[in-house]
């Protein structure tokens, strides 16, 4: 078995993930390399979900009975865990949403309805990048169409990085918000946050960072990032689906208007008008995803016990190994950085003229799960003139042997269609 420096004890870790024992297609061992789409869940998270429903289930923040109080404590306890996990200065800066898409849409809508100095209108500009997930493109297109604000973006270099050569022309005095991804879900690129944030701060623009592919894989410190908002989702970091996070700086959350109205987000309501609860509740209308928040809290406990720095080192070692092995496959072209430098553990590639759907299907027959398509980042495919890619993405339980299985599988694909 291949030993690489920095690897975690995957034999022990994999015992926590029941699904990894599964076989598919008549007894083939599952090789799960679709972690950028969603991660698998450890027993600890599954148990927390079960335990919540078996022992504590109640609606939160209302009712004086025991269950309501215990459920509220668990839900708010999950908020504390998230706040500590991302080094938020205050727990009140952590808003629970249903996923990262909702978090990103929430910011776009806060700004669309905001008063000065935050208001996005026809005299202002919005900046994104060409490597965004559709969830960080479409909300801004909508806001731009509705307000008349101009949407601008950073292009990409041939080697899969942001082209910041014209940063002063892209981010200007007119820019109200710069929203960009920390780690690309399709290219794997880790973006230079500091350079972009510094320029945004120079012109007084707000910064929103999509950390969906970062939070699961590396230490995340919202204070060090110096952003105004950070969005991510729970299901990619061992948590359940249906729970996302938006972190925002407290004074902004105080100033900015709510988006969804309903129960929980109010202070008082009359038939004429209402006043709002303070953040984060102002942005959490309706019954929240309670069990899911509790599950996310359990996921954070699980990841923290292993250590995010150790997870980062593990994935870096795997990525280095995978890049090296993939580049040896004839006709294989990596779409994105071809070294492990400033690179996450999602690797997209093309394999000669073989369509990614065929690659994915033949790999699936071998029990290897990868993602094929445009990965909700179609502009990246257009930029590189390809219809789609095959993407393999790793996590804390991934092993060098699984990368070997992928490479063998790709050899099989080539023979099959060659």
């Amino acid at each position: 078995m291949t030993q690489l420096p920095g690897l975690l004890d995957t034999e022990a870790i994999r015992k926590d993930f029941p699904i990894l024992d599964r076989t598919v297609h008549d007894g083939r061992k599952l090789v799960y390399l679709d972690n950028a789409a969603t991660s698998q869940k450890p027993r600890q998270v599954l148990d927390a979900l079960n335990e919540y429903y078996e022992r504590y289930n109640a609606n939160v923040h209302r009712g004086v009975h025991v269950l309501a109080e215990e459920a509220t404590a668990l839900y708010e306890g999950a908020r504390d865990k998230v706040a500590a996990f991302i080094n938020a200065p205050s727990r009140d800066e952590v808003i629970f949403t249903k996923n990262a898409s909702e978090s990103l849409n929430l910011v776009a809508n806060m700004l669309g309805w905001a008063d000065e100095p935050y208001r996005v209108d026809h005299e202002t500009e919005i900046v994104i990048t060409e490597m965004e997930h559709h969830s960080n493109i479409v909300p801004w297109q909508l806001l731009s169409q509705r307000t008349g604000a101009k949407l601008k973006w950073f292009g990409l270099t041939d080697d899969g990085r942001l082209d910041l050569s014209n940063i002063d022309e892209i981010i200007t005095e007119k820019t109200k918000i710069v929203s960009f991804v920390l780690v690309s879900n399709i290219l794997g690129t880790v973006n230079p946050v500091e350079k972009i944030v510094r320029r945004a701060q120079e012109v007084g623009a707000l910064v929103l960072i999509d950390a969906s592919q970062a939070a699961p894989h590396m230490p995340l410190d919202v204070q060090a990032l110096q952003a105004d908002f950070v969005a991510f989702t729970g299901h990619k970091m061992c948590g359940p689906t249906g729970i996302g996070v938006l972190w925002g700086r407290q004074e902004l959350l105080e100033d900015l208007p709510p988006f969804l109205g309903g129960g929980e987000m109010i202070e008082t309501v009359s038939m004429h008008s209402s006043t709002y609860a303070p953040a984060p509740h102002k942005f959490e209308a309706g019954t929240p995803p309670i069990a899911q928040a509790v599950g996310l809290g359990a996921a954070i406990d699980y990841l923290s016990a292993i250590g995010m720095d150790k997870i980062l080192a593990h994935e870096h070692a795997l990525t280095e190994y995978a890049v090296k092995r993939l580049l040896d496959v004839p006709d294989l072209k990596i779409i994105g950085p071809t070294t492990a430098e400033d690179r996450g553990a999602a690797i997209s590639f093309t394999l000669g003229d073989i369509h990614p759907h065929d690659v994915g299907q033949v790999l699936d027959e071998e029990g290897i799960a990868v993602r094929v398509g445009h990965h909700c980042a179609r502009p990246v495919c257009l930029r590189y003139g390809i219809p789609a890619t095959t993407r393999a993405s790793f996590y804390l339980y991934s092993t060098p042997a699984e990368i070997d299985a992928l490479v063998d599988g790709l050899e099989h694909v080539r023979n099959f269609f060659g």
Partner: protein
Amino acid sequence: MYQEVILDHYKHPHGRGLRDGDAEVHHVNPTCGDEITLRVKYDGEQITDISYEGQGCSISQASASVLNDLLVGKELSEARKIQETFLELMQSKGRIEPDDDMEEVLEDAVAFAGVSKYPARVKCALLSWMAWKDATAQALGGAEAERKTA
């Protein structure tokens, strides 16, 4: 799923390339980016040519090749029957085991029976067939309109 027949058509497509036609359509499968540009040529109600260019997975490309094989030279009524039978097979979710009658109608196209078990791939197999149907409606619709004005 990948029958030898499908791989043969994929590697050596029949009738590929765009030639003169009465109508041209461009169809895409947005989920995977498969694309086809297809032209049909009719002599009355007889299909004299189906020409196409496209890019995409082996299933979509092989299916276009099989379509060309099966339909060129046929009368429209017969072609419609073949198209409907193929559609029925592809929508069967793997439940139809093609019998001799079906095989007589579909010939090489029965090889796609296995594809019907994969919902994500059914659209790939149907792409060129839907394009043909659309192009036919345009070509003959246009021809009928011309006859009326003449």
